[in-house]
């Protein structure tokens, strides 16, 4: 709809300020949120550009340089396989963030779809979908992870298995939230108006309902982004997550399960720990910022 205006003779007309523009302005003014966003972008860029930043091999074990403390050559030292911790930290971030982002996207899409359909149509559709959601919320997570992992272990990459497992079992919360929001939003007359002007149900959901609960969804996305990363690292820490050979923050932290690493080689576990905590912290701050910025009182 915006492209229409640019080509037109009406472009001299003053454009209104969309609710998004208001929110963006408010967000940019939020210092903590902006610092957090900068940090997160930095970490993401570093992680995803890891192959261009460092040349060290992430898997090659080097028996002659095991457990070295930080030095000019190895900024964060080496782990028990003689691998550069800094390099693994970057690659680990790539895996952890990829899992986090993929899970959030999948979870949001599934949850929003189920929640909005249930909320919009109500009745039988609603009760069937909500029973199903309850069921998913009650699913034995850990066992499911192990079973899927072992069924798929030779056919599918372990990281993908983890993404599937976490996503498939985690959309329940968002679905419930979206449903309740849709139920509330549906009462607004603009939804009735949309129906009365002949808008199809799919379009009512997509164009009218979802944009208006998007703020809630976005805030929920940040919250679940943080919890997805925690889930990945937690599972990896317990040994049920990302396969051992792949560096991820959780796998690096699980090094601390070995007492000699915990006590004698803090450079192996402290950096991923600190980075992880800061990442979650910044995601939370961004979430708060988004919540403030999208407060509907500012445009209704």
């Amino acid at each position, binding site marked *: 709809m915006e492209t229409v205006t640019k080509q037109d003779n009406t472009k001299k007309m003053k454009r209104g300020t969309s609710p998004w523009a208001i929110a963006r302005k408010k967000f940019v003014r939020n210092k903590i949120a902006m610092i957090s966003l900068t940090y997160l972008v930095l970490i993401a860029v570093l992680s995803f550009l890891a192959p261009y930043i460092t040349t060290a091999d992430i898997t090659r074990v080097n028996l002659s340089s095991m457990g070295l403390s930080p030095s000019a050559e190895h900024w964060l030292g080496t782990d028990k396989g003689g691998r550069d911790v800094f390099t693994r930290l970057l690659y680990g971030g790539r895996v952890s963030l990829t899992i986090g982002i993929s899970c959030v996207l999948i979870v949001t899409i599934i949850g929003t779809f189920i929640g909005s359909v249930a909320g919009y149509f109500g009745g039988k559709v609603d009760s069937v979908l909500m*029973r199903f959601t*309850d*069921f998913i*919320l*009650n*699913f*034995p*997570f*850990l*066992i*499911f992870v*192990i*079973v899927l992992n*072992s*069924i798929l272990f030779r056919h599918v990459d372990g990281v993908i298995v983890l993404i599937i497992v976490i996503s498939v079992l985690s959309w329940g919360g968002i679905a419930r939230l979206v449903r309740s929001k849709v139920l509330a939003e549906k009462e607004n007359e603009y939804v009735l108006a949309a129906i009365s002007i002949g808008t199809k149900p799919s379009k009512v959901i997509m164009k009218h309902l979802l944009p208006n609960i998007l703020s809630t969804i976005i805030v929920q996305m940040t919250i679940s982004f*943080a919890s997805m990363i*925690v889930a990945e*690292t*937690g599972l990896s*820490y*317990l040994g049920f997550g990302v396969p051992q050979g792949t560096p991820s923050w959780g796998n690096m*932290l699980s090094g*601390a399960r070995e007492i000699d690493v*915990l*006590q004698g080689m803090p450079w192996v*576990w402290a950096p991923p*720990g600190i980075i*992880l*905590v*800061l990442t*979650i*912290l910044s995601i*939370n*701050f961004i979430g708060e910022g988004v919540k403030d910025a999208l407060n509907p009182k500012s445009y209704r």
Partner: protein
Amino acid sequence: MIKYILRRLLGMIPMLLLISIVVFSLALAMPGDPFGGEIDPTNTDPEYIERMREEAGLNDPIPEQYVRWITNFVQGDFGKSVKYRYDVKDLILDRLPNTVFLGIMSLIITYIVAFSMGMYAGRKPYTKMDHLIGGFNYFGLAVPSYIAGIVAIYFFSFKLGWIPYTGSVGVGLEPGTLEYWISRFHHVLVPAIILGLMSTASYTQFLRNDIIENSRKDFVRTARAKGTSESKIYNSHILRNSIIPLVTFLGFDLVNLISGAVITEAIFNYPGLGTLLLDSVQSRDYAVVMTIVMFSSLLVLVGNLLADILYGIVDPRIRLE
């Protein structure tokens, strides 16, 4: 209300049945059985393993196995642990008190800490102390429990020697004595703090915001205008209003405690149901795994129901129909 509770309880039955089918199928789909693993070849013969498989009914048709399992389960017979060579019921009853103790302690700690911090921050918002508490909360929400656990063991156990790193009670203490209970308390304290960390943060934040909001409401202004003392305003007017919604969190807490207990117990080697579950999953001790999963599902359902009921009691506007 009673009708409502009864109906919800009845509604749980199909859900539990569905979960039981899933749990059972997952257990079947789990690769490996309890008779694999590192075997001492000098002391075990293949025939023995086959006999044990037969005895455990692992060679029967699957639907038959399911029906047998669920029938027994409903009657309170949860089967026998292959690893422990022991009744699952007794095994769980053995570990249950530890987990319950951990959970209760964690709740108590959460409530005490959250109340003191939340009330202070709510009464004196935007002061230094409030910001400090706020920072602590953000931190508490951001630190995953296993990182907190690692750090706690590193400092408090190894560096300072303040807390034990394993077990639920000291050696050689007679149950029931004062020392025994002190020792149990001592063992559970840090795991409970770690377990309660996340909810402490969210409780504190909730309480603070609620108190600030309430203190701007009309009934507070009226009370002030009448000359009621500040502490009375906070303690009897505002606090009562702010605590009420907190009560409803209890149901959700139950759910969080279950999942949290697994990882906390694993970090501190605390012999509860969480460590039992992990061990059993690893050793493919199905009877134990299935029983624990079934009960935690039940607990989640009950927790949700409890949350809804408390919500209804606390906020009469929400009618439980």
